[in-house]
């Protein structure tokens, strides 16, 4: 018991690691602010393409979405970060993270938007068009608001996944929350900094996870 507290809940070590870990948290938040809007926008583009009347556009969208859902995000990130330099491009860790997350999260968000748009009845389109709204206006003012409401739990839950996923940026030495905690661990030979980082993730995400459970139950009922 003593050893467990010493090794995982060592307050003295946590206190020393705190400044480093907080700067990591700032970086994590920065990544989130960058990649979540990018993913939401890219996802919308994917969804619109996959519902297009042009067969080619549909195929390209579906193939792209399935491709990037099949590749583990860490593989994509390392490919971009370690592979592109061979082609003469040297992305910074943040650029590599932004590109990898854009490709990965767009395809997940895209599938969610698509399900949402499909759940809105054809009658909504017809009615909106007959009042004189143009296609894109119908989408923006009539269909999307309802679609997003229908898939809100999925959108929120995918966003939680994206926030959790930012931890893989530590692998390309981007000094975010997990990277800072792991640095502190390797200096102190003690796991308490990682427990502290885990606690920070919990504080950020637990309320959202609870919220998702409630949203899902309400939609299911």
């Amino acid at each position, binding site marked *: 018991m003593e050893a467990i507290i010493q090794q995982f809940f060592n307050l003295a070590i946590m206190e020393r690691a705190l400044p480093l870990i907080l700067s990591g948290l700032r970086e994590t938040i920065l990544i989130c602010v960058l990649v979540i809007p990018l993913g939401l926008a890219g996802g919308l583009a994917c969804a619109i393409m996959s519902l297009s009347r042009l067969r080619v556009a549909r195929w390209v969208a579906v193939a792209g979405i399935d491709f990037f859902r099949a590749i583990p995000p860490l593989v994509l990130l390392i490919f971009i970060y*370690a592979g592109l330099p061979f082609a003469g491009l040297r992305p910074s860790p943040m650029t590599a993270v932004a590109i990898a997350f854009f490709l990965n999260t767009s395809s997940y968000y895209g599938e969610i938007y698509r399900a949402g748009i499909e759940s809105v009845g054809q009658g909504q389109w017809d009615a909106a068009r007959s009042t004189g709204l143009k296609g894109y206006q119908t989408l923006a003012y009539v269909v999307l608001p309802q679609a997003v409401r229908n898939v809100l739990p999925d959108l929120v839950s995918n966003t939680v996944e994206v926030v*959790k996923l930012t931890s*893989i940026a530590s692998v390309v030495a981007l000094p975010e929350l997990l990277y800072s905690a792991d640095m502190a661990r390797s200096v102190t030979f003690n796991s308490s900094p990682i427990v502290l980082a885990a606690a920070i993730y919990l504080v950020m995400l637990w309320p959202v996870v609870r919220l998702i459970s409630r949203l899902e139950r309400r939609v299911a009922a």
Partner: protein
Amino acid sequence: MEAWSRFLDTFFNWIIIERYFPAIMKGVVVTIEIAGAVVVTGTLLGLMLAIARTFRMLPVNALIVIFVDVFRALPPLVLVLLVYFGLPNIGINLPSFAVLWLVLSLVLTAFAEEIFWAGILSIPKGQWEAARSTGLGFLATLAFIVLPQAIRLTVPPLTNRTIAITKNTALGTVIGVGEILNQATTAQSFSGNATPLMMGAIAYVILFIPVVVLGRLLETRFAWRRV
């Protein structure tokens, strides 16, 4: 033309493909083994927890909910590092592949429990009452009436979640599990060429595209439509 051949030389170098093909295949085997073990352990444990929850014993349910929430909120890589570097210091030494299996199984358990539980809750009360009134006991009702209907509903969300979690086997590279990504990055640094990375990426696509497409089919087939 020059640029094109340089591109081929860097990303699709035939000599390098031949040299590192066995290593990548070894990685594929490791990935499949760990992914398979995780799927079996995670879904079975998740189903058991969901069943345990139907007995509605308050302290047990509270513990299950806390476990599930924590494992849904924490990034798997945090858990991997915590277990891998933390346990040896309190005298527990697990090989890295066991750490990866344990962590991913627990994460899948948490998500699977939620999905199974939502499935069980979605079965109308009338089904329970009708089954009980025919003389079936609680367990028999659960096993023969409720679960068969509930599990059907859980197939699409569970498939998607399982795919997402088995892809996390790539995290094993951080703690030195010899899976595909690990073999690919090792080969890349030995050969000074990006071809092994390309091979690794292609291996993942070949492994997972069928599952992703299957997930898509199941989604339409079992259509769990939330209108």
